[in-house]
């Protein structure tokens, strides 16, 4: 019974990330404003990162997991406890760089949008497409 409750609650997180991804995709693809596209793009990236971190999550029986940082002296028993309780560090390491690079790319998109506004006087992609000809 209790595993089903836990599974239901964890599935809510999982499904809400899927819905967030869908909403963000709608924002990137269908909304006309370039600013809205940038906001939606960052939400999309964050949701994807959350999926990656959830892949590395675990539930040791009875207690909560611990972060992948060894706090004690590296004796064999401590290391055994650490291996049986810590979460997966690999997705976290990949997401870490993804967040910072995502910010740098967003900044580049911001500069591009400002440049488009300077040239065309609008950030609406429909109007930009009309003005080009």
């Amino acid at each position, binding site marked *: 019974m209790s595993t089903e409750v836990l599974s239901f609650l964890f599935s809510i997180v999982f499904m809400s990330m899927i819905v967030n991804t869908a909403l963000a995709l709608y924002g990137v693809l269908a909304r006309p404003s370039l600013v809205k596209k940038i906001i939606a793009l960052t939400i999309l990236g964050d949701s994807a990162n959350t999926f990656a971190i959830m892949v590395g999550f675990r539930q040791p029986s009875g207690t*909560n997991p*611990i*972060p992948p*940082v060894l*706090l004690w002296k590296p004796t064999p028993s401590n290391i055994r406890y650490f291996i049986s309780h810590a979460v997966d560090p690999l997705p976290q390491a990949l997401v870490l760089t993804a967040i910072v690079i995502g910010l740098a790319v967003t900044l580049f998109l911001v500069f591009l949008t400002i440049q488009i506004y300077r040239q065309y006087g609008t950030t609406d992609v429909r109007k930009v497409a009309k003005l080009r000809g």
Partner: protein
Amino acid sequence: MMSLENEVLLFITIVIPIFLAAFIMYIVRALKGPTIPDIVLAVDCLSYDLAAFLALLSIYFRSPILIPCAIVLALWIYALDVYVSKYLMKKEMGE
């Protein structure tokens, strides 16, 4: 006689739902907030209280290294206030 550890963990277990009720009310105000300062104020309060809650949870999880998250949250939410109030002023952001 109850041991110290059990007493502390029981206390935190009792406190968590009350914190949770407050958070939900703050989130409702932040999502409803008719004007922009209302939203910022609600996010502000939410983050400061979340910082206190994170500090409490790091005792509950017995992972002391989780505590820097609380400092970072309390420091950076001030930046959000500053940006929004600068935006609402008549000057450009860099002036």
